[in-house]
């Protein structure tokens, strides 16, 4: 018996060990859902959904995931993606009112349409192939035409201008891609609870797409385990940023509108996603509000924070965190249930006004010139109000205070940019390149092969009021089958990216935080960047019925050319003349003679000697033959008619 027991024990141990390993690996997979709400100064509300899914490093292929979407992990394994970001955006981010110097805007203010960038972990020669395959895979995964980024004319390989320094980085964007629910549904499918439960249940399609801005983003990065044999872990970050105008009944225009989750989205949260490790809702109040209350020691004071003379919160926050310029209320939605749904509301009592922190320079881009021939692209950088405050803080190099600005811009090949025409004006004074341009990297476009790319690093003095960059271009001609279906709309130049390498945005929380992925990502320093507008260039478009005309004209010309050429080659003029002379002696038909006499009279010339050719003798013969033929055919027809009707 003891022997038996002794033999069982190792087995049991082994079993428990295996179970432990299995569970251990599963415990590594973490999912968290968060929602950040933020009233904006222009009477709108920003809602930022943040879902994070972590898969820890593992050492086996074909591993079964519990929470992590298999499609994404396969994507990472197959194409060896090191880091990737895909965003679908509709509407424009308003940098003036919605902020430009916080982590939220620098990460989530995206250009219109689709933007994709990826860093690969493959040898340099295979990067392009991986990129092409990746675009196709994503295209199928997200029901979007991302596969158009496959063509080498639509993507570029930024070196340093994009912010991520890697030679295995590829960047492409499709400004004209329309974003709709068909892109959101596959994105939601990656979440463990879909939109059935938890915070994502708020995503009522009509209210999400009614917003002024809507950006759906997917960011994934691999985490190296550092251990031998183990693969790499994946962190999948999915965010949806929506700017919504709450419906108000009040006529007062300076009063901020009051709202609740149910009024914004038409739905309420009825409990968290059970698979989520944490599900929190945050409310961030910016500006003046944050500065007012300094001490939050006692319970009463804390209470005052969320129920005071300015505004009321409908629910008691679980925690309140102070940031340098804002207040953050944290709500845990685990407690909510069907009977008691989580419906956070904010009621304003007094008119309040605040402004968002802006990026040091506000960038706008526009086209110069009109018509179909030439033009110029201009990027205008204007100092914002918050510039002075920022510049004094962290930018003093060798006695001179400067702002660094990186400009990264892709030009489609049909915009033929003359890089030598680059002009830089600082405070309306033209500057030479060496004065302000610190670094520049240009890769010119090749017709129908690759797009052009421009990376510039400007070093502007801190007290700069405005800076302008202009660069001239010529419009190219496309082949007729390269035009898109709506060619007369014009062609898009993708947004330029302006980033400030020496400015970093981060939220500076004064307290130690719980392990919230959203807040920790806010706490990390992120590069301040802003995208400019998409430009529309009207190119010369052919009349698309033209090929037909061209074919007809060409055929006519060919016919005329070959006809006359054959005539020249074939004809023997000497013989013809001899023939004519021999014919001249013969008699002419009476009718012909009459005609020639008539024409001679009209022309007022004496009657010509009978010279012209006249196969008169033949004509009678021919006509008799013809009459015979006609009679034959008519007889046949009559016979056919007779026999066919007889039946």
């Amino acid at each position, binding site marked *: 018996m003891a022997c038996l027991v002794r033999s069982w024990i190792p087995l049991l141990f082994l079993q428990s060990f295996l179970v432990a390993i299995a569970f251990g690996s599963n415990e590594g997979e973490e999912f968290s859902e968060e929602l950040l709400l933020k009233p904006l100064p222009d009477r709108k509300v920003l809602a930022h959904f943040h879902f994070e899914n972590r898969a820890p490093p593992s050492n086996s292929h074909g591993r079964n995931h519990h929470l992590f979407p298999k499609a994404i992990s396969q994507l990472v394994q197959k194409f060896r993606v090191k880091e990737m970001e895909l965003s679908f955006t509709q509407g*424009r981010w308003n940098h003036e009112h919605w902020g430009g110097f916080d982590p939220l805007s620098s990460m989530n203010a995206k250009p219109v349409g689709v933007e994709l960038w990826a860093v690969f972990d493959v040898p340099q020669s295979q990067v392009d192939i991986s990129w092409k395959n990746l675009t196709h895979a994503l295209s199928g995964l997200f029901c979007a035409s991302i596969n158009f980024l496959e063509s080498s004319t639509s993507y570029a390989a930024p070196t340093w201008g994009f912010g991520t320094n890697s030679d295995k980085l590829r960047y492409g964007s499709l400004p004209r891609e329309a974003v709709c629910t068909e892109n959101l549904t596959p994105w939601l499918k990656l979440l463990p609870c879909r939109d059935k439960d938890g915070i994502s249940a708020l995503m009522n399609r009509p209210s999400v797409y009614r*917003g*002024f801005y809507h950006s759906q983003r997917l960011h994934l990065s691999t985490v190296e385990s550092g251990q031998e044999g183990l693969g790499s872990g994946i962190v999948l970050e999915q965010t949806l940023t929506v700017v919504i105008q709450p419906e108000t009944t009040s006529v007062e225009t300076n009063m901020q509108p009051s709202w609740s989750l149910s009024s914004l989205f038409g739905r309420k949260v009825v409990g968290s996603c059970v698979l989520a490790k944490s599900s929190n809702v945050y409310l961030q109040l910016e500006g003046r509000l944050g500065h007012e209350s300094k001490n939050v020691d006692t319970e009463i004071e804390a209470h005052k924070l969320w129920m005071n003379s300015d505004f009321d919160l409908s629910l008691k926050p679980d925690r309140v965190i102070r940031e340098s310029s804002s207040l953050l209320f944290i709500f845990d939605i685990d407690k909510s249930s069907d009977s008691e749904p989580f419906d956070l509301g904010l009621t304003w009592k007094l008119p309040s006004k605040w402004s968002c922190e802006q990026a040091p320079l506000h960038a706008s881009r526009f086209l110069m010139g*009109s018509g179909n021939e030439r033009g110029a692209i201009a990027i205008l950088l204007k100092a914002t109000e918050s510039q002075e405050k920022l510049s004094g803080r962290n930018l003093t190099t060798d006695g001179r205070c400067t702002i660094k600005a990186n400009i990264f811009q892709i030009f489609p090949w049909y915009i033929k940019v003359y890089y030598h025409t680059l002009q830089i004006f600082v405070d*309306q004074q033209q500057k030479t390149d060496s004065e302000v341009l610190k670094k520049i990297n240009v890769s010119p476009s090749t017709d129908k092969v690759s797009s052009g790319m421009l990376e510039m690093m400007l070093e502007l003095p801190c007290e700069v009021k405005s800076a302008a960059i202009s660069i001239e271009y010529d419009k190219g001609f496309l082949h007729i089958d390269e035009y898109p279906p709506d060619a*007369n709309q014009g062609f898009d130049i993708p947004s330029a990216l302006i980033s400030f390498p020496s400015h970093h945005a981060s939220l500076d929380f004064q307290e130690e935080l719980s392990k919230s992925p959203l807040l920790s990502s806010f706490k990390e320093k992120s590069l301040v960047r802003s995208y400019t507008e998409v430009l529309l260039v009207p190119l010369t*478009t052919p009349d698309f019925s033209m090929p037909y005309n061209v074919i007809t004209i060409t055929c006519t010309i060919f016919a005329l050319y070959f006809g006359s050429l054959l005539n020249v080659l074939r004809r023997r003029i000497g013989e013809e*003349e001899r023939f004519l002379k021999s014919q001249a002696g013969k008699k002419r038909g009476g009718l012909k003679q009459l005609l020639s006499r008539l024409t001679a009279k009209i022309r007022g010339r004496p009657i010509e000697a009978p010279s012209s050719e006249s196969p008169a003798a033949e004509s009678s013969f021919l006509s008799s033959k013809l009459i015979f033929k006609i009679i034959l055919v008519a007889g046949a027809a009559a016979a056919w008619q007779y026999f066919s009707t007889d039946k």
Partner: protein
Amino acid sequence: MATEKRNKEEEEVKTDDGSPKIKPRPIVQLGIFLVAHSPVFSVVFSAAGVLALLILPLLAKNTYISENALMPGSARSMLSNRDVSDGSKLVKDIKNYRLNHEGQVQKLVGKYMSEMVAEVYYQKFHPEGNQFHPLHFFSGPDSYTLLDNVSCASYGVNVAGIIRAPRGDGKESIVLVTPYDFINGGDYEALSLGITSTLFSLLARVTWLSKDIIWLVADSRYGDYRPVAAWLSEYHSPSFKVSDLLKCGERNTADNFRRAGTVAAALVLKVDGRSERFEDTLSIYAEASNGQMPNLDLINVVNYLAVHRQGFYVKVEKVVSLLSSSWLKIIGEIFEAVGKLAHTLNPDWNFGIPVADYLEGSATLASSLYSQALGIPTGPHGAFRDNQVDAITLKVSPRFPPDSKTRQHDFFLRGARLLEGTIRSVNNLLEKFHQSFFLYLLTSPSKFISVGVYMIAFALLVAPLPMVAASLYIEGCKALTKSTDNPTENLKSWKWLDAAKQVFALHLFGFIVTLLPYFICQVPGQHSPSNRSIMWGTTSSSLLLITFAAIPGCSPFTSRHHGTHWAVLKSVTISAAFIGLCLMSIINFATAEIGALLLVPTCLMAQPIKPALRSRRIKSMLGAFCSMVLLTIGFPVMFFAISKGLFGEGLVGLSLGGEFWTWLESLWAWKSATYLYIGMVHLPCWLLCLCILFHPS
């Protein structure tokens, strides 16, 4: 053409020699036939050309919306009384503001705009005069160099507000322009601000916008066109260099100029005067510089909405004096009778129109042709067309006096609904306007003649020119070979060279005369237009004399026996006129059409009067008389005077030269190609005809 002629010549020679004749090709035969009977054909073709022009109102087609995406009038208007009260309030405030002289009205308008959540900015511009520079013809609108010494004494301030489309991508925009004189604008003008403000208040709320909306209140103190052109040039080609203008005034307006993507279309709204009719009247102006027209779809949309939705009486400009002309009435009656006859023969032939319609149509057509031919834009929309933007000016005349409050509400509602519908249609467009016509003439707001139809009249008019040139050349060569027996006879194909020299010299002269005003303008001191025109006239005529003296064979007064034969000279002249007219028809069709009406008969009729007087035959005397009359009319100054009389602008007296100068000045200020045509095609051809008239043969 010369080789063709030579070929024909060879053909002729062969038959003359009596050698065996090879039957020429039918097309060559036809050519020979046409050339041989050129006098008959030229009369027939010219008459047909004029007839085709007269028949155009009958051939006008009804307009239709070509671009399906426009869908005018399919959406219900969302304008509410609240929006209208916003507009009324602005008008009332402007009135009070101006009464109390509380300061700049621009600020008030800007305040209203920013209350509607629009981005507002002010733009200063300098009312710089358009200066003639010969090199600036056909160059873009932006080639002006910035004036260095700008005085702060006179500058205008435009106000502009932008509404960003909530979900749009900001690639395109629509511009609304209301010119308003901020210093001494009338009550009617303020109404246009009221209408646009009503609309703007609505657009700030709507969610269907996909293109940004820009409302520009142009400071029309210095004319309607200049502020809009200044704004557009800042929009499309700003100078990043420092401008002195920015230092003027208290507000720093330098940095806040804002843009909103490619301009898809623009509407200029003006309210003026009281309507003479029972309904409110809407006049559409579309002609831009050098006869360019906006896409017909834009006019169609406005016309459709104004007539079928808002009940405006829509009209386009017409030559009023033509409405009462008896000769046109007779022609109209004939056409009506023919149309009726055709209808009785075949009920499907419905081309006849009533006399009244015909008169209206031809008066409108004449105005349309005239405005296009003049090449001067008929409103601020011309500035947009120079930047390849489709734009029209809408001039609304209400039927009530400006202080009637009750009527004003209804007027604002309807005016704003019209604009709302138009903007909504343009907003629907995915592509820019390209479906409908760009080359057309209007005979009424809802009827047009497309390029394919009106080209026929011109083609018929100029068709006799090459025929007559060929036949005259043959004739002249024959005459020369007969008269001279020198050994250079075999070089007969170069007979035209002498004549060509003369033609070239006169064209060169025309070119110099065209450039002269630039130098006359440089003459220091103030001169009245009449003085300048006298200066121009004297320099030109002295230059002409120098040309005649310097280039032998040019002058009509030197009688030499072996000079160029007049027929050859006329042939080359006609060829030059033909080339000039055809080139002009590409640049500005209407100018070429009117020019052909003048030049073709003059060129065809021109013949030496000496033999005609010598022969003392009625026929040749009549011909000489006709050519002299035509030449008199064909002189540009004379034609200017006659056309002025025709348009009912009163008789011009002694100041004719001055007025002519002013007219030309306006032509070159607007960079009208008509000026170039007059100087470089019409004048030389006219002079050549004069040479032929006094030719010593």
